[in-house]
């Protein structure tokens, strides 16, 4: 994973049973890049939340693609479509004024980029120093 701008991706059906494969993919890439275990865990959680939102929103008729871009020892994760993030998930109504999923993502990655027009969520984490 040392080549600049290396890109990998995984596409899953919009089915909750396949989201674990996304977590495995993100974990493997994160380890190869040299991210800390905490960063990897955070990226896995964000990917799961975005996939779950897309599945619940039924916006992913053609599946969900998760892309990783490695650039300058930084791992950027893109999830498309990532769901609307406008309502609270079932069972957590009233937990906050903004959806619990979005609050989780922004809590872990304050610089997370939501692109509602294209339905893409983008977050990034740096590799650990050697």
């Amino acid at each position: 994973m040392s080549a600049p701008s290396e890109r990998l991706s995984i596409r899953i059906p919009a089915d909750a049973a396949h989201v674990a494969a996304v977590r495995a993919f993100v974990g493997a890439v994160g380890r190869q890049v040299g991210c800390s275990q905490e960063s990897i865990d955070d990226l896995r959680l964000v990917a799961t939340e975005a996939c779950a939102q897309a599945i619940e929103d039924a916006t992913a008729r053609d599946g969900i693609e998760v892309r990783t871009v490695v650039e300058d020892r930084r791992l950027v994760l893109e999830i498309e479509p990532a769901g609307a993030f406008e309502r609270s998930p079932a069972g957590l109504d009233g937990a906050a004024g903004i959806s619990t999923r979005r609050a989780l993502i922004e809590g872990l990655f304050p610089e997370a980029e939501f692109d509602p027009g294209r339905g893409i969520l983008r977050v990034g984490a740096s590799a650990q120093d050697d």
Partner: protein
Amino acid sequence: MDVIVETRTQGAWTVVEVAGELDLHTSPPLREHVLQLIEEGTGLLALDMTKVEFLDSSSLGALVMCLKRMRERDGRLVLAGVAGTPMKVLNLTGLDGVFELAPSTAELPSD
């Protein structure tokens, strides 16, 4: 993968041992199992989360549903041994102050 490893009795408590990754796919069977135990009259229920490596907001929703149902029956639901990413998720959502937590099943509150 089944996330429910074992359901056992420990003193006055019913303990459900959970393991693996809890998400949109794996949490519904756990929710149904716990709701069934509550329906059967279990009033002191602990979820042993020691071996849970991952937990997302969908799973939190399931756990909140179980907690609400238990409180409607004047029972207690304790999450034991929560650590790592699951604990971080509880903290970020503020639900660490909503659930009753125990360090481990060996340290469950006295009934």
